[in-house]
């Protein structure tokens, strides 16, 4: 029996949804997200003709603008969620989707994020967390793991990171999820779920920045030198992420230090 086709062709996705080839570094996790997002959008389907994509400044913000063949609003650093709130409130007939980086949404834009979550503004927010500021050369962000090396923490990051899922749930978000780009099929499914949510939905996408995070922290990555840095970073994600349901059954010592992935509902309380 011939295998069922899981998904559309990449060439069809490009023709239908993209204006141009990707502008990212080799092996960029944001590109993996873009691939998964388009598959989720095609499957839902998300009507690109009635969707406004809002993004701030950073590599993650480039996913929709200039790539997506749709209405895009590429705004100032940190303000994507506030612009999106304005679009949504003025035009509730349109879908409003924010795609931006961790620095953009959680450092400089953190206030807008928590208030949109509290007010449950019906926008979908995808935070591409590559663990640092990619575009400006790999500086520490609000999600950089403790001890990780960045351009501005040469001796290792002294500060603990945000848990973005807890942050938005604590602020009142009805739906939050976290998925790594290392499992693109699961990621596409997670994106689809978020896009189906009627209200505010937040997805932390665990992405990779081979150029800055990968190079600065190569010593911490699993695998061997013959493998590409993007691949070793994906391997690092695979080893360190564990589904929240599976994690619940793990002994504490195996659970320690793992990143929980999955979906959370606001009414459950904190994860």
């Amino acid at each position, binding site marked *: 029996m011939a295998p069922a086709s899981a998904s559309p062709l990449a060439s069809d996705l490009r023709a239908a949804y993209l204006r141009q080839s990707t502008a990212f570094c080799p092996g960029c996790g944001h590109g993996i997200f873009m691939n998964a997002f388009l598959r989720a959008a095609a499957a839902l389907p998300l009507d690109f*003709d009635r969707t406004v994509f809002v993004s701030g400044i950073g590599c993650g913000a480039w996913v929709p603008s200039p790539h997506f063949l749709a209405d895009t609003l590429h705004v100032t650093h940190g303000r994507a969620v506030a612009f999106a709130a304005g679009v949504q409130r003025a035009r509730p007939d349109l879908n409003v989707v924010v795609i931006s980086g961790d620095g953009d949404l959680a450092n400089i834009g953190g206030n807008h994020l928590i208030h949109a979550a509290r007010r449950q503004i019906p926008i979908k927010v995808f935070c591409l967390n590559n663990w640092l500021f990619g575009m400006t050369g790999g500086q520490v962000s609000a999600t950089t793991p403790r001890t990780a090396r960045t351009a501005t923490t040469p001796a290792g990051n002294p500060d603990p990171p945000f848990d973005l899922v807890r942050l938005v749930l604590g602020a009142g978000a009805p739906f939050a999820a976290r998925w790594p780009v290392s499992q693109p099929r699961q990621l596409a499914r997670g994106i689809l779920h978020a896009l189906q949510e009627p209200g505010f939905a937040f997805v932390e996408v665990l992405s990779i920045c081979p150029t800055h995070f990968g190079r600065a922290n190569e010593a911490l990555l699993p695998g061997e030198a013959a493998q590409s840095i993007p691949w070793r970073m994906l391997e690092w994600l695979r080893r360190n992420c564990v589904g929240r349901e599976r994690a619940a059954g793990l002994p504490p010592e195996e659970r320690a230090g793992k990143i929980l992935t999955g979906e959370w509902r606001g009414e459950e309380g904190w994860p």
Partner: protein
Amino acid sequence: MPKPHRVTIVESLCKGQACALCAQVCPASVFRPADHPTPQGIMPMQAAYPEKCTACHQCDQLCPDLAIDVIAEGAEPAPLPARGGPFPRPNPMGGWVERPALLPAGSYFMSGNEACAEGALAAGCRFYAGYPITPSSEIMVHMAHRLPALGGTFTQMEDELGSIAAVIGASWGGVKAMTATSGPGISLMLENIGYAIMTETPCVIVDVQRAGPSTGQASRPAQGDIMQARWGAHGGVDLIALAPWSVQEMYELAIRAFNLSERFRVPVFLLADEIVSHLYETITIPPAVRTFERVRLPQDMPFDTPEIDGVPPMPAFGEGAYLLVTGSTHDGRGYRRTTDAAVQDKLVRRLSAKIRHHQDEIDDWEAYMLEDAERVLVACGSTARSALWAVQAARRQGQPIGLLRLRSLWPFPDTVVAAHCRGRGEIIVPEMNLGQLAGEVRRAAGAPVTSLTQVDGEPIDPRRILAYLQEGRW
């Protein structure tokens, strides 16, 4: 022997061995690097052994560049949903229209802030986002009560950065939008006001000026934001600012602010002050209002025109224009051109020229007793009320003196000031700051300028101006 699956890589999209995720995820060793570089100098990956492919689809779903197609033998790729409309295209031609005013024609007793809100509504404003601050808050409260019944949207945001952001977002949604604040809020809004200039987004920003700097005196008047309005956003490109002196003008100039904003696709400041905003006066609401409706005409170039000083049409979201709105330097279609000197130069010059070259449509002033005046007072906002009183009193004493009241401040009405000031004996500029207006007047007047400044948070007492006119004392 079953037919093999088909695996193809578009070489021009592939980023090669530095990525090579396909080769590493493939359980069947289908991929290897090609032996020839692409024109970009990258060694692309190649599906060298497609016969080994099991159509597990891990490679095409992981590829960050969407460069890989896997067509499983005997399976049809999932079709994609159709695109391309039909799209709603409301009022594409835009332009000047006359519509009935919202309030029944007649006399009303109201505050400047209320009149401002009513003027905005009459102009067609249907979106307000803001953050409370004295002395502007009554505008926001009035909007909160009025907008829902008019089918509009009111939203109180988390701060002023968010307020102006929401306003710009709403404007691209095709809705006339505004915010109101005071100096501290303007300081926070400036980055996005620059964004509105760069993206040519119509919106109205009311600045009810209070005594600064910083938190200063919240309920005391000032005119300290004149330069901030013009030069606050980095890059220094023109915008428009109007200065009302009465409750009637809070209504009328709010309408005009929207009209200019839509006409020129530029943020427009209504530079009020605490006195005109909290003053109660009787105003006349005429039966009709003339408004400028945005030209939405969908076309290729929402961000450029063939003319060097043109205003491009502005389609809204959801109309099939697939807008690329960005605050980065962009070409006419919105594509970022962040290292192209010619594009940057052309854009910045047009953003300025579309205002400067149409200054005759923007300049707005009133002249009082200027014909035979040897000395001319130049003033704006509530200070002009004091100035007029002083001029009238001095005239009664036989002094040949007049007043030029500026109702538009930016672009600065150089020609108007020169026409009324050149060759006069003295130009006197009273204002509630350290000489911001006087500096501009000095540049344009062609006559000696005296700057009368007051920064104590009190309105300028007309008797103080009169004393200067009589005795030269300030």
